[in-house]
């Protein structure tokens, strides 16, 4: 029997995904197509925010939406009814999207005819945070009814996002959600993150959110 050797590997486990995500980013840069990865818990309002975003920005950008869902077409149908290109990616039992799944989804679009594609990731605050999708910016929604302690429970998600949309602020009056404490917790994990307070229902803050996104897209596709 041979003696046991110690063989050095020194490789990142997620390097395949990272490599693919980097290639995807470079390709998007060449084509001048901005990709936004939107993540949140189920029920926090991803689809509603996307619909509001389309309403605000469809006059300025050519928009596509990549919908990830376990096994339904509900969200894609809502989005398609606004007249933008929507692709439904059925993730089977998967809990997140990775770069290869996003690439497969993007292949279904005519990328050169689009300025902005929004990924509606699987509703989950855990797994999507671990996988780079190749998106140019990561956004997340935290809705008021979920509570101000979410940054403590899902620190990785809050640390990988460029912007946090605090949605359903119309519930603030009937809730003990501490906005200041939540913001401090988030800034500790991610000092550079932008935080926007929004209600998709009343429309408060939607202009600020659309303005943030418009600035990012315009700078990228210039």
């Amino acid at each position, binding site marked *: 029997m041979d*003696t046991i050797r110690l063989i050095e590997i020194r490789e990142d486990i997620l390097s395949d995904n990272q490599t693919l995500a980097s290639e995807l980013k470079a390709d998007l840069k060449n084509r001048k197509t901005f990709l936004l990865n939107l993540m949140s818990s189920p029920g926090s309002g991803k689809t509603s925010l996307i619909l509001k975003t389309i309403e605000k920005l469809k006059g300025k950008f050519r928009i596509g939406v990549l919908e990830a869902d376990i096994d339904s077409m509900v969200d894609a149908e809502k989005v398609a009814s606004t007249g933008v290109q929507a692709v439904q990616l059925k993730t089977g039992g998967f809990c997140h999207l990775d770069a290869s799944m996003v690439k497969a989804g993007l292949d279904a679009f005519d990328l050169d005819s689009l300025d902005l594609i929004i990924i509606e990731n699987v509703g989950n605050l855990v797994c999507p945070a*671990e996988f780079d999708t190749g998106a140019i910016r990561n956004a997340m929604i935290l809705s008021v009814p979920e509570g101000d302690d979410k940054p403590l429970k899902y620190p990785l998600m809050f640390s990988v996002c460029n912007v946090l949309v605090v949605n359903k602020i119309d519930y603030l009056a009937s809730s003990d959600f501490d906005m200041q404490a939540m913001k401090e917790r988030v800034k500790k994990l991610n000092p550079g993150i932008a935080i926007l307070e929004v209600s998709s229902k009343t429309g408060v803050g939607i202009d600020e959110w659309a303005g943030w996104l418009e600035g990012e897209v315009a700078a990228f596709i210039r």
Partner: protein
Amino acid sequence: MHELPVTQSILDIVLRHARMNGVTKIHAINLNIGELSDLQDEWIQRYFDYISKGSPAEGAKLKIERIPVVFRCNACTGSFEVRVKEMKDIVCPSCGKKDLTLVSGREYYIRDMEAE
């Protein structure tokens, strides 16, 4: 929940190194995984045992070293460790400031393997 794709990636990487090094049997794989990852050791091993059947990695033990969460204070540049369960209202223990940068705790890394 995403243990399966991560485990598949571990297997792909170690089998590639096994081929490069003429390895016939892998006994153990040493991993560095950050405390911020919620991967469950037990499940990674269970999936690994399943997908590695019939390969040189069959029966290999995954030895996971958890890398602690470390923050650096942007005010006094001191570094300090934080337990994930105590990640509430963190302040720099030296100067009391709250402007912090995450230094480690997000690792997903294969260090080496014990093989013959």
